[in-house]
């Protein structure tokens, strides 16, 4: 079996797109929408932004989160910026059956489990997965890689993908609830 972590490269992920021009036109503040979109990125996924100006301050913010940027002016004086995660981050690991992350829906539940003692994060994630419907995705932050959780998720038919952030202090993972097996 080929490890899924080798086949699951960022190239297989379609960049997520966000157009903030309508928000700005209606007098809104786009930063919140941008950050929500960025927080919802799959591991390794790129982010494409459309804005009516060159979003210089955002470059610094995204730089801090480990994203390189490529900005180009498009017609009408608007700008298109592609933020790509740097390859320096930990490689993405995933369950064997996690095929195309880009078709996964946005997470319906966010869990911050970084302050919990093991094995409590495992209990919380499995309990949340029981609550959700098949196809739902949950996002969790942990302080370490939940090594013992992975086989249990696989056994229950759930898919997962995750990796460490750039500082290697937080493990981020998506779990996509499967149809019950056992």
């Amino acid at each position: 079996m080929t490890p899924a972590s080798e086949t699951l490269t960022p190239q297989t992920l379609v960049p997520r797109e966000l157009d903030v021009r309508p928000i700005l036109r209606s007098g809104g503040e786009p930063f919140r929408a941008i950050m929500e979109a960025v927080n919802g990125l799959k591991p390794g996924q790129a982010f494409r932004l459309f804005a009516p100006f060159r979003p210089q301050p955002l470059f610094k913010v995204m730089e801090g989160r480990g994203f390189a940027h490529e900005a180009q002016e498009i017609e009408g004086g608007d700008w298109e910026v592609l933020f790509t995660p740097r390859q320096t981050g930990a490689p993405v690991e995933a369950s064997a059956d996690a095929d195309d992350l880009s078709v996964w829906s946005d997470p319906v539940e966010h869990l911050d489990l970084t302050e919990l003692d093991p094995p409590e994060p495992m209990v919380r994630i499995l309990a949340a997965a029981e609550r959700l419907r098949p196809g739902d995705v949950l996002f969790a932050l942990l302080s370490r890689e939940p090594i013992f959780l992975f086989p249990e998720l696989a056994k229950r038919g759930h898919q997962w993908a995750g990796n460490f952030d750039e500082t290697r202090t937080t493990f981020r993972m998506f779990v996509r609830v499967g149809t019950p097996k056992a």
Partner: protein
Amino acid sequence: MPGATLSPWTMSYFSAACLFLVIGQGMMAAGYGYPAADVHAPVTLAVVHILAIGWLGLLMVGALLQFVPVLVAAPLRGRRLALPALGFLILGLLLLVGGFAALAGVEGMSPGLLPFGGLLLVTGFGLVTIMIAATLFAARPLPLPARFIAVGLGALVATILVGAIFTLVLSGAVTHDAAIALVLDAVPLHAALGLAGWLSFTAIGVSYRLLPMFMLAPDEPRATSRAVWWTGAAALALVIACVTAIALGGAAVKWALALAALFAVFAVVLYSTDLVLLFRARRRKSVELNIRASYAAFAALFFAAVLFALPTTRSAAGEGAAAIVYLFVFGWLTGLGLAQLYKIVPFLTWLEYYGPVLGRAAVPRVQDLVEEKRAGVWLCLYYGAVAAATLSLFTDSPAVFRIALVAQFGATVGLIVELVRARALSMVAPPMRYPAGAPSSISFFRSLDHRSNQ
């Protein structure tokens, strides 16, 4: 796929290890071995090997089979070898002890058992080395804790090969000069390679991963941790070079051994600072009993190193620095082993039994499987007895030593009873003990991974 499953035979290794710990300490409490007999007397050697191979060796192997995959986030290679290896190790140890008994004059035993025991031990530890080394090799580049284990395995191989040569000489099968020279000069080096190289270095490596996990402390490797690895590995390389020099007909170079000792003490001091820093950086304010008991073991390691480094205390420690070795084996290695078992056994039991129903039924927490207060009393008694026994060896008071040994034996048995109760789920409140969907039974000798699809 990444992830670690339950190692099915780890619990078997632990059960056997605890049995040998009870036997070994029981024999000591009954007056067998040093100080009633000589340090090099066959009866002392029998007790030492029951404890070093039967207790500490099996304990370490069982723990590695479970935790090396966790350390490198990759599955264990050759997992089918785990059970045969256990069989070889137990049988080999029994033959070895039988051979020592023959040397001690026990009728019906023959010194000819020694090389057979040696052969089986080489086979058993060889299989273990293959499993762990293949797992590590496939997971390169290795994180720092795993690099400690790699060096520990090297020390294990050296220890076992030297030990096997000893069995050939002691049984009279081999009369080669170089082999005899090894028996005459390399016994302390054999002990150092086994206790400090294989057991301690490996334990230090695993602790660098487990302590941050249990205390919620950052586990990024520090410069000091890397320095512990380098100085410790250098010390072991020097010892192995000296053993080789003796085997080639020369003699151990005095300065090389002194340098190795200096490196080893330095490594312990660095490791101790790491431990203090880790403890201070923990996010979990109140730590569990297993951590508190582990820190008692770390203190024993530190004191053993200091007592060894000072010429006056080293010469006062008796034949072969026995008092310091005692503190090292029982305060540091055995203390740490018991403390970690007190965490690992409930955790693995919890995972095996409640893992399949997590999120689907109300389950107890891991800490509900144990009763820390009672175990805390046993651990206090244990460490108190070890301290008293060590002191009595320094002051040459055999009567106090025997009393301390009996107390230590009692505390050990008390702790093992606590482990059995945790494994039997007997401390879990009845409504939660057997949730629907959980496995129907639990074995003391084998873990069934109900979670794997294999």
